[in-house]
Structure formats: C-alpha cells, structure tokens
C-alpha cells in the first residue's frame, strides 16, 4: 500500500528558530513530491520536487528530495509567527492521474 509519513506530527518553536520537517514515502511509480502549507482550509503550494539532490528555495523555506532513501525535508529558517500552520507532504504517482497521496501533516506553532 502506498504510504507517506511525516514527522514530527507537531512542533513548537520560538521565533528565529530553524526547523526541519521530514517526509518519507513508500510508493510505487513515484513521479514527484509536493509540499503544501495549510493555515485555514486551503493548502497553499510551496514546492514540487522531482529530482534528487536539487534544492528548491523560496525565501526562508527550502526543500530537497532524496529518491534513493525515499524522503524529503522542508527547512524553515528564522521562523516567524506567520509560519504557524500545518505543513503537508504529498506524493504524485505515474499512471494515477492527478491523485496525490498525503502524509498526516506536521503542525508547526511558532511562539513570539
């Protein structure tokens, strides 16, 4: 059965801290891995990763994929209270149309 597992499930940090969120997967026909930020209802797209070792970066957020070890990490540096959200990792498969398999999410809380 295809599976995506995120850790930790929740995390509390203080502003300015750096956090690393983990996502591991066991799937057949891996196509890409996507990271989303969910604050209220709608997940907001952050990154899509398809190749190992190539870091994607956007401001204080960065992510990298390791297709050999089947995991990805999402780093957030100099965290701010506005980074508080649930971060979702999802995997897209070949031959599955647009189906995304989601992990449980990591709930990040950034305290002032």
């Amino acid at each position: 059965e295809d599976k995506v597992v995120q850790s930790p499930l929740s995390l509390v940090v203080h502003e300015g801290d750096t956090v690393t969120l983990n996502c591991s997967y066991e799937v057949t026909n891996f196509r890409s891995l996507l990271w989303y930020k969910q604050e209220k209802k709608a997940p907001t797209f952050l990154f899509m990763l398809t190749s190992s070792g190539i870091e994607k970066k956007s401001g204080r957020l960065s992510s990298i994929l390791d297709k050999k070890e089947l995991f990805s990490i999402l780093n957030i540096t100099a965290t701010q209270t506005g980074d508080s959200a649930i971060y979702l990792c999802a995997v897209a498969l070949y031959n599955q149309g647009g189906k995304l398999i989601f992990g449980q999410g990591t709930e990040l809380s950034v305290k002032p």
Partner: protein
Amino acid sequence: SAVISQKPSRDICQRGTSLTIQCQVDSQVTMMFWYRQQPGQSLTLIATANQGSEATYESGFVIDKFPISRPNLTFSTLTVSNMSPEDSSIYLCSLRDPRGGGGYNEQFFGPGTRLTVL
C-alpha cells in the same frame, strides 16, 4: 497559477439533506479533482472530475453518495448526498497546472468548503 473559487465557503446542514459545492476556475484545465479532509485528518482524494464523461471514483467513494458534474473545462460540482455527521469535513477542489511540462504538473487547491452536518 489558475485562480480557483469555491461556493459555498461553509455551510451547516441537517442530517439527510444534500449539498452541492461548486468549483470555478478562471482558465481551462483538463484535470480537476475533489478531495475531502475530515477533522484532524489529512486530505483524501474522492474522485477525478472528467469533462464530458463520468467521474472516476477512488476506493471507498461512490457516485450515489458523491455525484460529480463537469460540464466544461472551467467548472465542476460535487454533491454530498443524504448527509450524516460523518460527512462533516472540508471539501476541496483541485487542479493540475495546465502549463506543466513533461508530466510534472504542480497541483493547486481551491479555498475549500467547510461542511458541518448536525
């Protein structure tokens, strides 16, 4: 990316009734999807909304419970039929960015509909 809107944003419904959720996109997209997020859970795909043909449902979801329409390339509806409290969830429509190349398409979500069934 395409702009996605959903109506209603939220609703509170009585057990046994039905609710139709609309999803509108500002550009033509081939693939649209409907996801559900139950309280405290992650997202689960309900079905793929195919333009001009019946939707393709995932295991555990059936057309009688979640009928879907896709009359054109910019619009889709999901109906939650004969609702029970277990249907209380966030319902999200989603699409793959039509500009993606090589089969690697980013996927975006609408603002969601928060449904509470009493």
